[in-house]
């Protein structure tokens, strides 16, 4: 499922992960640890300025089957990756 930017921004966020200034593999590790703490159905958002994380985090959570990728919002090199815990 991939939601539009407006729909993503309207979602209730349960866990916010601050990944700004982080690079790999920390960007992925902090997302995974937040997802471990989250309850099924809850929305976890990682905010990051590490461009490659927009590829690695969705690939990792899909492979782990730990979360659904709801979508990514990009604004001037800052990305918000929306995930829903499965």
């Amino acid at each position, binding site marked *: 499922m991939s939601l539009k930017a407006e729909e993503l921004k309207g979602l209730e966020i349960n866990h916010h992960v601050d990944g700004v200034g982080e*690079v790999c*593999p*920390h960007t992925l*590790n902090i997302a995974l640890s937040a997802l471990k703490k989250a309850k099924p159905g809850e929305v976890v958002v990682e905010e990051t*300025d590490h*461009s490659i994380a927009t590829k690695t985090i969705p*690939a990792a959570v899909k492979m*782990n089957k730990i979360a659904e990728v709801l979508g990514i919002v990009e604004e001037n*090199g800052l990305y918000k990756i929306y995930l829903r815990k499965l």
Partner: protein
Amino acid sequence: MEFFLIDMFIAAAIFGFLYGFLLQKADFCFVASVRDFVSVRDSRLGKGVLILIATAMMGWGISLTFGWSTIGEVWSVPIGFTNLVGGLLFGIGMTIAGSCASGALYRAGMGYVQFWIVIISMMIGNILFALVYDPWTANYVQQPLQLAESGFSLFQLNLPFLLLPILIVGVMILITIRQFGVKGFFNGFKEAAMDLKGNPLKRSHWDIRLVAFLLGVIATVQFIIMSSISITGPETRMVGVALSFIFGEEFIYNNTYLNQMFASFPSIGIGPEETLIIFIVLGAFVASLLSGSFRLRLPKKKRLPYAIGGGLLMGISSRLAPGCNIANVVSGVGGLSISSIIVVIGMAVGVFIATAYIFKMPLLLFQKMDFEDDIAS
């Protein structure tokens, strides 16, 4: 060589710009190609590296077959355990730092302050190595660990130059077809070219398979008209130039290692290969500006030890191996050089060690996955 022609500087600037532009467009990360594969089974970047190797191997084979370059120009260094140890330490260093030698350059152009720190730390590592090279490293590390005094490329075997590249790339294609089918194989070409539709310059991301192929072609052209692509050698010379301003040129001439780094230079200064490095950063800067992904990215303070420690380790080990990911993967493995094949194996093991034991990441590659159960049932 007594002097460099201005044409070489212009060619180097163009090559550097194109490398930087393309690396940024695909977010081409050599660390992630191994780390993400063993950790989360993500093979996107790994496929890119394999396509880059395949293209370079074919490119080197074609240029030798047609006599556009000679076997003496293929980059190969003495074979020994230093290849393995240097590669291993470089692999650990780049995983800690968060990027390889080429990754640090393109990300520096994207505005990552962390990777400016990594590059400076790598350069300090280069100098630390040069300071202990004669007599310690040369006599007590490199010589005892050396197996052969000269390098060896499989292109030196008395075989048609294209035979081995065709065989190796043929096996790679067969494995791909076995996994994805003939249709899937050809669909890959179509998908890879999709990102060129519309205005590709504004697009923030290009398919890594397309970029890997283009990088391999450009590296081949560079090999034919200029030199084998490398990063950490030129970086060592750049810091050598800086030191010559501070301590005088005698400092460089009196240091065995730095002196030999400038052996083919008319004087101590910036040559074409160093120009190429600067233009990689510029190419990435322009690519990220065009797609709107440039941003001044400040690192978290607690991560600075990773940037500095990883960078220092990369700087020292890149001199020991010798060479970074780019020189060994493209010019080395592409040139079928035995030493580089050993270095690259060392790097992959190094990335694995850092992923598993320093970052303690999940290792899904070695776990039985649910979908395997599905297939089995």
